[in-house]
């Protein structure tokens, strides 16, 4: 049996992490899981769910079909840390060092711009949570998932782990065992949330695993947009981020889920995201992967009932030392369902992008429309891009299209722009931003500006 310590004095984190009140020693065991559950004062069913998931985690092998994951050391990870004991209700209540960090991320700005309730994740727990009264008046629940387990147990119990089984894959199993934080959203029947709901996440300690768990339920006819964005400082030790995101879109509901992922370049980002779309529901994943060392992420939509639609728009950028293995699944389980997949990837300085997608049509799911378009931009011979578009079509009456292109920056385009006064670097930026414009248009303006800036930073020194 491993010894569990509630260690208040061991300051093996970087910077001012002495403020962390509770950390566990590195490593994972049943006792660690029980302790996490106890600390959160969870009901028995959740504790059992975690323990069951841990068994699946132990049984499942590390997947070998994608990026190289052989360097992940599960035994060296810290599986739980809590920054502050009690959550702050307002900005001023937050500890100063945490406020500083978020000032740099521009969160108060976002508040001023009256973007919705800001929910901030610092380490494993949500420490700052300001939900606007407007949302409460609409009956919308927007809180961290830990709170939801306590305050809305019926809803959580009904949906938690139903879209993504704890036995789905090794990292979903790990998340199910040790999850902490994440967002819980419930939008009642017919309610259209008038502003995007936002959360910021940040890994801020060496060796710190982040296992947030997000569950979004849009009841019949509900409509919501959720935005998740993250930045992280660079550390030398490898960090693991294994999130699970489950989305349920009931009849006629619309859910748009926007992610800008910019983890530091030492993070393994292995995320399972999946949505169930019921009758005439519409689910959109808008997903950008800019950071991390390795990302494996395939936001998927299961089109469960007649008339369901999905739209997956993604951008992946792989710079030096990065492998973005991304894609999507569209699983057509009912007639008259449709899916659109648009993927844009950029690789440079030896970076690697992989598109891995599955379009599946079940027997009996007639009149399916599905279109996939993957475009890759490759900067140099050191970089690499691959496309693996899998199709399993068991119904003849379907209209499925797939297009893929791989291109380099075109000399004629560079010359044209340079002849209009742009430097080579500016010209490259303009071409690259044009390449992903279709994606950026889907982002709210503040995000679009930040995203374009991120792209430009990545392009620095890419030519000449």
């Amino acid at each position: 049996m491993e010894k569990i310590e509630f260690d208040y004095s061991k300051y093996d984190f970087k910077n001012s992490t002495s403020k962390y009140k509770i950390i566990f020693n590195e490593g994972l065991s049943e006792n660690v899981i029980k302790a996490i559950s106890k600390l959160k004062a969870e009901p028995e069913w959740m504790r059992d769910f975690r323990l069951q998931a841990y068994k699946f985690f132990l049984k499942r092998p590390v997947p070998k079909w994608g990026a190289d994951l052989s360097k992940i050391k599960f035994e060296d990870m810290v599986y739980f840390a809590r920054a502050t004991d009690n959550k702050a209700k307002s900005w001023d209540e937050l500890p100063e060092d945490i406020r500083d960090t978020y000032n740099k991320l521009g969160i108060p700005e976002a508040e001023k711009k009256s973007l919705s309730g800001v929910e901030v994740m610092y380490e494993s727990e949500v420490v700052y949570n300001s939900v606007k009264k407007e949302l409460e008046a609409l009956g919308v629940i927007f809180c961290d998932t830990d709170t939801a387990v306590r305050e809305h147990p019926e809803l959580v119990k009904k949906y938690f782990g139903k879209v993504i089984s704890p036995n789905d894959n090794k990292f979903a199993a790990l998340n199910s065992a040790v999850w902490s934080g994440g967002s819980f959203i419930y939008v009642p029947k017919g309610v259209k949330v008038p502003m995007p709901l936002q959360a910021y996440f940040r890994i801020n300690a060496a060796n710190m695993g982040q296992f947030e768990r997000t569950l979004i339920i849009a009841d019949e006819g509900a409509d919501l947009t959720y935005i998740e964005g993250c930045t992280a400082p660079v550390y030398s030790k490898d960090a693991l981020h294994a999130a699970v995101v489950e989305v349920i879109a009931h009849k006629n509901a619309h859910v748009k889920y926007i992610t800008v992922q910019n983890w530091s370049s030492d993070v393994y980002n292995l995320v399972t995201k999946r949505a169930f779309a019921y009758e005439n529901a519409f689910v959109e994943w808008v997903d950008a992967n800019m950071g991390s060392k390795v990302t494996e992420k395939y936001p998927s939509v299961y089109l469960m009932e007649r008339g369901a639609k999905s739209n997956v728009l993604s951008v992946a950028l792989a710079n030096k030392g990065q492998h973005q293995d991304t894609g999507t699944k569209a699983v057509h389980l009912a007639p008259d369902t449709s899916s659109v997949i648009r993927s844009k990837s950029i690789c440079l300085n030896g970076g690697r992008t992989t598109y891995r997608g599955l379009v599946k049509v079940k027997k009996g799911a007639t009149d399916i429309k599905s279109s996939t378009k993957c475009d890759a931009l490759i900067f140099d011979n050191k970089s690499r891009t691959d496309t693996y578009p899998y199709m399993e079509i068991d119904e003849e009456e379907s209209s499925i299209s797939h297009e893929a292109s791989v291109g380099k920056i075109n000399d004629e385009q560079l010359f044209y722009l340079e002849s209009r006064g742009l430097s080579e670097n500016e010209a490259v930026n303009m071409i690259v931003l044009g390449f992903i414009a279709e994606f950026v248009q889907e982002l709210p303006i503040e995000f679009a500006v930040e995203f374009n800036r991120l792209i430009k930073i990545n392009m620095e020194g890419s030519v000449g």
Partner: protein
Amino acid sequence: MEEIKVNDLETEVNGKKVLNGVDLLIQRGKIHVLMGPNGSGKSTLANVIMGNPKYNVTAGRITIDGEDLLKLKVNERAKKGIFLAFQEPVEISGVNVMNFLTTTYTNLNGKNPELRKEVVQTMQELNLPDSFLKRSLNEGFSGGEKKRFELLQVMILKPKIAILDEIDSGMDVDSVKLLGEITKKLSKDTGFLMITHNDHVLDYIKPDAVSIIKNGKIIRSGDYQLIKQIREKGYSEIL
């Protein structure tokens, strides 16, 4: 900048000699017409002046106001006030026309809060609809639209010397007339090297200089009289 002077210029592309000792003078406020058959080196000359890296200068020189032009990068030449209207402007996906114009204008001339208004007015003059501003650069433009968009850039960016590489080809009769009138108006301040295949546009302008190029060499040069001669005697006899 007042003038671009080309002296005894020789150029290669993919190891093949295209220009074979060209001399030419382009002056601000004047229109120089360059004519010649297909493959004679007209576009090559235009591209070399602008600095297209595809072309390799093997001998001769190009100067602007006495300064060596060949040493300058493409965008530095643009900043000196040189503009090339492309014969076949390239398409760039996702780069919106108005954003492109704002970026290039700001780069060359500095900020202009009135730019959008000026662009919209100029587009009306060129019979380009407002919706044009939201389209991707040259993408899906008709041949005539591409040429009018190049002309729009001349009018908006106000270069000191503009090289128009067969801007009249693919234009309908009305657009050619418009091109002539606009060039004439702009030539009070801008210098033009107008490369053309046919002489319709010359009904509307009176060039200050005319050069005929063949096999990478200027074989005839003169003033407006040379055009008259061509019209009377035919092109082939001059060549």
